[in-house]
């Protein structure tokens, strides 16, 4: 996934510079062909599915649409999704900051291995992410008998859903902050510390203002995944209506019951979440690019 650091490397206004020179310009028919093929591919595989969600959601009219969203099971799914994200995102936010601080502000052995381990959840199938918690906390798992004896439910209950969500969204904030803080170096924090600022003060007044856009970027991507996770949550949820159904699971149940209009109505909420995420993400890239160019201008004046 291209992070904010990568996005910033894209030049702001490159559009015309290639077409100005004969050496970097294609023949008009080649250009039209590349544009035609790539944009058709984009429309077919990305745009059309998105349009279909909203079309199918509203196919049977606004009344059916609203009824599907105000159904008690839908409302409880929405509540559980919000709750899950409200726990998982802050947990991974704190972790991301701690990990990035340790990795970028200090030198120690095994740093590369640690970064690889942090990225690990992205290369594990979501189904396996659910399975591992079943193996640890399930009835036949390591802590199963103990949990049963103490009447604590983790699998097929909300804690399991939260755990699986934390796992799949684990790297988002950390992998956004690590390259960003690496690029910014340690001098500013070291200066603050030498001048007598405490560790927390240094973080709040020096580091945080420098990383706020990267932090926000990681958080919104983390949030989108937390609210939308399906595979991992599906394994640990048990699909108990009104109790352990998140929005994506509710979509699945409605769809499998051939209640397509309602399924797409709930899906359209998730699609809107995705669109809002993309808008905020683009806005942050734009803001960060403005900041970067303002800073480089300041640097040139000095």
């Amino acid at each position, binding site marked *: 996934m291209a992070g904010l650091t990568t996005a910033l490397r894209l030049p702001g206004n490159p559009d015309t510079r290639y077409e100005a020179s004969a050496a970097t310009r294609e023949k008009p028919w080649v250009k039209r062909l590349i544009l035609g093929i790539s944009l058709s591919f984009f429309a077919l595989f990305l745009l059309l599915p998105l349009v279909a969600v909203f079309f199918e959601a509203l196919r049977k009219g606004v009344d059916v649409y609203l009824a599907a969203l105000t159904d008690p099971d839908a409302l409880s799914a929405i509540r559980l999704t919000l709750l899950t994200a409200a726990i998982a995102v802050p947990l991974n936010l704190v972790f991301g900051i701690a990990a990035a601080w340790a990795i970028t*502000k200090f030198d120690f052995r095994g740093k590369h291995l640690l970064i690889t381990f942090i990225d690990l959840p992205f290369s594990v199938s979501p189904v396996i992410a659910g399975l591992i918690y079943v193996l640890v906390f399930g009835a036949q798992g390591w802590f199963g008998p103990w949990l049963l004896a103490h009447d604590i439910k983790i699998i097929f209950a909300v804690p399991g859903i939260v*755990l699986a969500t934390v796992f799949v969204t684990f790297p988002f904030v950390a992998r956004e902050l690590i390259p960003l803080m690496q690029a910014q170096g340690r001098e500013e924090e070291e200066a603050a510390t030498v001048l007598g600022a405490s560790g927390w003060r240094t973080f709040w007044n020096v580091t945080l203002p420098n990383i706020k856009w990267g932090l926000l970027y990681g958080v919104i991507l983390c949030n989108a995944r937390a609210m939308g996770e399906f*595979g991992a949550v599906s394994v640990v949820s048990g699909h108990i209506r009104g109790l352990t159904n998140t929005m994506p699971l509710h979509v699945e149940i409605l769809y499998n019951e051939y209640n397509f209009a309602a399924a797409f109505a709930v899906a359209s909420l998730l699609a809107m979440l995705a669109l809002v995420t993309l808008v905020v993400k683009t806005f942050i890239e734009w803001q960060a690019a403005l900041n970067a160019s303002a800073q480089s201008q300041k640097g040139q004046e000095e």
Partner: protein
Amino acid sequence: MNRATTYRVLPGFGLSLGYTLAYLSLIVLIPLAAVFLKTFSLSFEQFWAAISAPRVVASYKLSFGASLLAAAINTVFGMMLAWALVRYTFPGKRIVDALVDLPFALPTAVAGIALTALYAPNGWLGQILEPLGIKVAFTPLGVLVALIFIGLPFVVRTVQPVLADLETELEEAAASLGAQRWQTFRLVILPILLPALLTGFALAFARAVGEYGSVIFIAGNIPMVSEITPLMIITKLEQYDYTGATAIACVMLLLSFALLLVINGLQAWTQKRGEKGS
């Protein structure tokens, strides 16, 4: 003690690293270890029987085959899209650029039902393809379509920055030496893009092998025909066959780790190329 300790100025090393390691172990490493420990409790015959059952082997073929094909298709079209986004101006370019990340932001279940609705026999695209004898939904072809959807941004987003960093001087030099545009692309630009293309391919492939949500709706999940490997894990779990599920998960995890090593190597290569170029 090493030298780094002597020069450490900033506070919070113990706290931040300690918290990082503890949280990483609790959430990721120890639960993942459960898969391997559980697998070791099986006899080899049990393990082999679980991972080589005909239905499971059929699922490997589909998962690997469709993932490879989807990654290859995405590499070709993703490169064209990245090229268009970096080099050309066209109306709606910013919107297209932002929407490339849609598969990252759109929940997989939503993508799954949307693709199914499009490609079902009575859907917008299914209606066109059905008379031509092409069935997409509920066939292996449907799996391919879902995996193309999910993998496209990986290729675009790894190729795009490399393409944008490319010095135009290289192409100007090639042109002044008499190279045709196609020759310049094939002999100058493509070799520079190669590490990024391979990285994008590997990332898209790795994601596709493990993908579940967007595939299961459109696949139809017919045993021996359109069942993917992650679905086999779910099926075993639903039958309370935890050992079988774990054995298959173990195979998939080993593949994921191998891919992770390959991807790390490719990314290091891409970076080295970039540094040499600039």
